[in-house]
């Protein structure tokens, strides 16, 4: 009788996991269908126009912005970020670097933009800008520099922050993202501690999110992760978020960038 029950249980498990597998397949098919005309294209086009448009108190464009490959060079910049910038004496990711350029070239108040809620005002413009800049590196391989000591420090700090467990639920980034082949509900979780998972996870953002109809940059992705970790609120372009970007990006070295990608 007991053996019979165990067999029954095993049968039911196989049935349920087959159903879950087919749902995951259906979701993958749906994504492939949508990817044909990824709505992120719209953000890319708007971002390119914003890049070239004279705006802000100084009525200047961003065309002289140095994203790490020299003033005005957009192609290939995304796959080398975050990196050290001598002018700010900081390691910066794409979003914190855009804040710098918007302040120095266009005269915007970077601190004010950092405080603006996602999706509003200049934050909405940054979403378009990150779509444009990341798309200019589509198909290129991540190659974050690690030559400067501050870049290595950010990598080491980022790794520790990734594994930092705290809050009422004891969660860290690692709780969901340090094993291969795991899911939350039906959502596949990339293992961000390994090259393959970091390439698929880190390498997909910025992305268009079907569930919210929004374009999210890495900063917003990390922000919502921390919300679900039950942590307090990570500052926009704060050092902890940039350090995590360095840790994930260096782990993803060699992976191809597909950003801006399409997500659930």
């Amino acid at each position, binding site marked *: 009788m007991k053996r019979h029950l165990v067999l029954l249980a095993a049968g039911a498990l196989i049935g*349920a996991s087959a159903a879950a597998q087919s749902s995951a397949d259906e979701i993958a098919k749906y994504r492939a269908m949508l990817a044909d005309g990824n709505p992120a294209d719209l953000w890319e086009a708007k971002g390119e126009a914003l890049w070239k448009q004279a705006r802000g108190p100084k009525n200047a464009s961003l065309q002289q912005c140095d994203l790490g490959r020299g003033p005005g060079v957009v192609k290939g910049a995304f796959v080398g970020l975050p990196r050290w910038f001598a002018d700010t004496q900081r390691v910066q990711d794409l979003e914190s670097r855009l804040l710098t350029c918007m302040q120095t070239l266009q005269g915007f108040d970077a601190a004010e933009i950092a405080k603006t809620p996602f999706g509003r005002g200049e934050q909405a413009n940054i979403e378009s800008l990150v779509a444009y800049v990341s798309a200019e590196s589509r198909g290129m391989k991540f190659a974050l520099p690690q030559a400067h000591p501050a870049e290595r*420090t950010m990598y*080491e*700090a980022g790794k520790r922050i990734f594994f930092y467990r705290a809050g009422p639920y004891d969660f860290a980034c690692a709780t969901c993202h340090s094993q291969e082949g795991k899911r939350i*509900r039906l959502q596949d979780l990339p293992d961000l501690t390994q090259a393959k998972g970091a390439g698929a996870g880190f390498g997909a953002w910025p992305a268009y999110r079907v569930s919210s109809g929004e374009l999210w940059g890495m900063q917003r992705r990390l922000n919502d992760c921390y919300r679900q970790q039950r942590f307090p609120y990570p500052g926009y372009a704060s050092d902890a978020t940039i350090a995590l970007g360095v840790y994930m990006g260096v782990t993803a070295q060699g992976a191809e960038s597909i950003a801006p990608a399409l997500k659930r």
Partner: protein
Amino acid sequence: MTFTSRWIAPGAALLVVGAVAAGCATAPTVDYDKVALEMIKGSFREQGQAKVDRLQQDEAQRICSGPAPAAADLKRIETAELATIKPPASGRYLGDWREGEKLAQNGRGMTWTDPAGAPAGGNCYNCHQMSKAEISFGTIGPSLYHYGKLRGVKDPADPAAAPIVQYTWGKIWNAKAYSACSEMPRFGHAKVLSEQQIQDLMALLLDPKSPVNQ
């Protein structure tokens, strides 16, 4: 890599980084643990019910954040966490599995977008398979399908079932009592769920009529 239990004095980490940035000929050894802690301290702010005191680690969180914790540390954590488990004041371990199923489906609670004081869900399906009907389940935790049935629980009130009933209560109350670095939240100990809610989840797992055991 271990994290110190207290926050370091601001500036110490910056001094080290500053020296590196200045390009000293002899690069000082950077204490990355301190740099990371300082960075965490400086990067978060409170929002809604999520205050910055949540960044403070207790000993279990601190030890489980480092690679390869020592066996003696794990043992000490488990002993301390075991001592936190409170059996139900009423003596009643099982509630209503229907309420338990609703809780298992509910992943809300304690984020900065949740209203403070609103009851939290159990989050169970996020990580565990539970019933046959619900195919949208996560796989971070083991499957709990047929949890009571596989353990031979035919009548949870039978004294023969007491060990598994009490263990299950303890596991939900404080998972770290049985596995120091378990990924599972300490639902009772951290006051995420009430005694009544845990009773309902107990029924979902152990009541022979629950969908978990069908």
